[in-house]
């Protein structure tokens, strides 16, 4: 008989945790209808689960909207990150290319300058400009991006 109680105890929990086979379910129903102690235990277990399901909490005010706002800002950052990577990669490549080709460019400009009869200062300035061009392009990108960010900040302020 005590083996029956032990089995019933096991099945009461098992029914809630992982479910029972039809045969076990039938046996348990039969046992519970005959054993007041096990029926009380089954009732208490059921009550514990019902109580757990009935628990409620209060949400902090505007939790969802505040989170949505943060997520959108982060999404905006993530969207701009690859563009920045591309800009820095372009700068790196441009610098490496410039360093490798500088002697050849210098010689070519020197040759072209003499052939066209322009003063040395002119083709030397041309060489300087050739070196400064990538930096000028990056500065332009930065200026455009800053302008865009400024207008987005205005939008953020309006949202707040």
């Amino acid at each position, binding site marked *: 008989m005590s083996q029956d109680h032990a089995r019933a105890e096991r099945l009461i*929990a098992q029914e*809630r*945790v*992982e479910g029972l086979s039809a045969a076990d379910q039938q046996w348990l129903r039969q046992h519970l209808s005959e054993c007041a102690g096990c029926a009380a*235990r089954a009732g*208490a*277990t059921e*009550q*514990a*689960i019902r*109580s*757990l*399901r*009935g*628990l*409620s*909490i*209060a*949400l*902090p005010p505007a*939790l*969802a909207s*505040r*989170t*949505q706002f*943060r*997520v*959108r800002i*982060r*999404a905006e950052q*993530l*969207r701009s990150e690859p563009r920045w990577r591309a800009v820095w990669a372009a700068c790196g490549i441009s610098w490496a290319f410039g360093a490798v080709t500088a002697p050849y460019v210098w010689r070519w400009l020197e040759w072209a300058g003499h052939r066209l009869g322009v003063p040395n200062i002119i083709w030397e300035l041309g060489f300087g400009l050739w070196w400064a061009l990538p930096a000028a392009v990056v500065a332009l990108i930065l200026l455009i991006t800053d302008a865009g960010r400024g207008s987005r900040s205005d939008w953020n302020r309006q949202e707040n």
Partner: protein
Amino acid sequence: MPTPLAAPASLLFSTLMADDKKSLALGLRRRDPELLDRLIEQYQYRLFRYLLYVTGNRERAEDFFQETWIRVLERGHQYDGKSKFEAWLFSIARHLVIDWQRQKKAQSLDALTNPEEGAPMEFAGDDPSPLHLLLTQESEGTVHASLGELPAIYREVLLLRFQEELGLAEISIVLGAPISTVKSRLYRGLEDLRVLLAGESA
């Protein structure tokens, strides 16, 4: 024994569910802002409740809540659409809590994931227990108090199973533990809760 109509109906339902999960995975991969807004609204109560019960602190739960959704945004491509979204969501939240706890207590990962082998894991380790304080403040009777007395590992699985209605396999995804571990924690937690409630009401 399913009726002749039940099988196609359930098949259709599971196909629809699978399609939903796939479109969800696609939207997360694209970082669709409307989809994220909708998910935040839809899961705010369940996620916050889970975090509140595992951390025992409203402010911290709120921080983790926001951080969880940032992670969802950043790592949306990791959701494969095969498992339930909420299981993936809760596992992200849980990892954040564990990382925070690890920093706080400098415990090893093994101690956190195999609590049966050592001291039981407590997500909230302040003294007195913040959960206890919270539950005292927001007393909803003996259930809250009894739940607060349970070790966090048992409290967590009980909440996932009986409040979130997650299946055993889904809980095992959240916990990153085998189903056998989930079951043993559920049996132990349910028994402890029953005893605690019986003691409170006696």
